């Protein structure tokens, strides 16, 4: 277990560093310096030179990267010239809201997908199964922004059931206080994951149904229901843990678009604006945080799995 942890954490660190390096280099390849963007179009070459000098954008990429790493290690994610604020404070502002949105949708997705997938497996090749499969495929085949905008057009602007934009409250509590305004964003973010999760759960449940222990359970005289609840459900939902871990990147991406579409200011939106502004520090910080989240997600997933699934011994 411990040795396993050591190993995983070690590789996690490597990955995170890799993410930092990769994003940093990519950014540099495209925008050697944000000077022009920061100083505005009416600026002068001298000013730009000066800006680069003052902010070290004239140094070698390697040197800049080292400072970046160094700052990051000390928990300093840099400063957004565009927004005239430290990235840390910007993240503090927004992280909560993003976490809320993604978290709720993720939980929702799992809560819906697991029973759905298992039900499909149990009733496989029934009408229900076909319908469910069809729908999940359809949703799965839709670009998330399209889903979101359809939801807005129909449920909000046509039927006026829900507000067209997410809660604008600046605190998480405030957001929670306006559940109606979060319905659409959450739904559109949930939909896509549900589709893919349920597919997976279905096949996992099918595999388990084929196992002898199900037959044994029946041979004990258990009713179908208890066979399902006592034996099938748990084993076939275990993979969801890994799945959730792996789906984090998609979740982040989806989150980004949903926030944009529903005007929900969280990290995604921040990132989105930053992309347009080449707001260096924000882009880097976001990708870094994203990377850490993903790595951590998988790590936690594996550990969680090892706790719930006795077969997996983390040696």
């Amino acid at each position, binding site marked *: 277990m411990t040795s396993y942890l050591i190993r995983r954490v070690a590789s996690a660190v490597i*990955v995170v560093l890799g993410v930092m390096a990769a994003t940093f280099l990519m950014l540099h390849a495209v925008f050697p310096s944000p000077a022009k963007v920061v100083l505005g179009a009416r600026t002068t070459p001298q000013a730009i030179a000066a800006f680069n000098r003052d902010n070290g954008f004239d140094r070698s990429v390697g040197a800049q990267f080292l400072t970046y790493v160094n700052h990051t290690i000390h928990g300093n994610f840099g400063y957004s010239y565009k927004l005239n604020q430290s990235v840390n404070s910007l993240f503090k502002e927004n992280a909560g809201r993003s976490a809320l949105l993604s978290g709720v949708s993720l939980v929702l997705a799992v809560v819906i997908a697991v029973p759905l997938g298992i039900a499909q497996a149990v009733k496989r090749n029934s009408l229900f199964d076909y319908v469910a499969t*069809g729908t999940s495929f359809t949703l799965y*085949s839709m670009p998330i922004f399209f889903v979101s905008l359809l939801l807005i057009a129909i449920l909000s602007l046509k039927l006026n059931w829900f507000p067209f934009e997410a809660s604008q409250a600046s605190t998480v509590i405030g957001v929670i206080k306006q559940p109606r305004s979060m319905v659409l964003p959450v739904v559109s973010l949930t939909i896509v994951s549900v589709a893919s999760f349920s597919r997976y759960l279905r096949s996992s449940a099918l595999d388990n149904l084929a196992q002898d222990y199900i037959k044994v359970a029946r041979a004990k005289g258990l009713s179908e229901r208890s066979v399902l609840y006592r034996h099938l459900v748990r084993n076939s939902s275990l993979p969801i843990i890994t799945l959730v871990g792996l789906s984090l990147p998609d979740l982040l991406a989806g989150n980004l678009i949903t926030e944009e579409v529903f005007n929900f200011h969280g990290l995604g939106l921040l*990132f989105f604006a930053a992309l347009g502004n080449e707001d260096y520090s924000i882009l880097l910080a976001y990708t870094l945080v994203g990377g850490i989240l993903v*790595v951590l997600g998988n790590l936690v997933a594996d550990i969680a799995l090892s706790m719930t699934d006795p077969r997996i011994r983390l040696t």
Partner: protein
Amino acid sequence: MTMGLGGLGPETDLLLSEPEGGVVYSEGSSFRLALRSFMENRLAIAGAVILVFFVLFSFVGPFVYHSNQSAGDLLQAHLPPRQGHPLGTDTSGFDELGRMMKGGQTALEIGLLSALIATVVGTLWGAIAGLAGGVVDGILMRIVDIGLSIPTLFIILILADRYNATVLSFALVIGLNQWLAPARLVRGEVLTLRVRDYVSAARAMGASRTRLISRHLIPNALGVVIVNVTFQIADAILYTSVVGFLGFGLNYPNVDWGDQLSDGVDQLLNGYWWLIYPVGACLILTVMAFNFIGDALRDAIDVRLRKR
């Protein structure tokens, strides 16, 4: 087991005296097996039909339905469906139906191309990792992890800014975002394949590494890879729309469903429904078709593996 052999329409060898080892029933190649189970899958058939339809629509359509796609007329912009413009015109004044055909071509091309890029890169990567094992494997797979940990949009937008959106560069951008999954997949496959007995057998005959790879590993990993390709195409087409939505779609004279849809979506509230729903349907149905097919293929190949 040995039973059921005849299960699939036996066709005995015409032998005068039955050999000691018994007769052999013909069932055709494993490909035929797979095909058979594929054909039994209704969704798969649906997918195939849809796909064929849209291929014809995109590539044959323009010969049947003529429209000027080289010069748009701004004075004829975003007209609702009418005589001469069965699906109206888009914001540049191009005939929407004709545009959709053109867009279909590009979407399918990009989908295919980027899926190929992703698959080729991913397969090689995964295969090398799986075969080399040990430290090399460790390094290569870390790189994949890194790739998976960077927000796709970030990469796409960076690359999109760097490279001008042509069909090729577009396919590259998407492909280079998609190769990670197959890399992992193929590595896993190789890891299992390389310890199969028939590989040992080949080694025992003195087969060289290259032969092992080219004659045994690759052909047997192929199934998984092909399945993956179909999914990749689906994803790629989806991505075109996301990239379009972020404003890096293709430009005149090119166009693809992705940016048609994202342009259309801007018009959602303006009630220009003809710029949204038709192309939306095309995109979603096609993506869905590929998913159906991929899903069925996967089962079909499983059947082949299960068949023992």
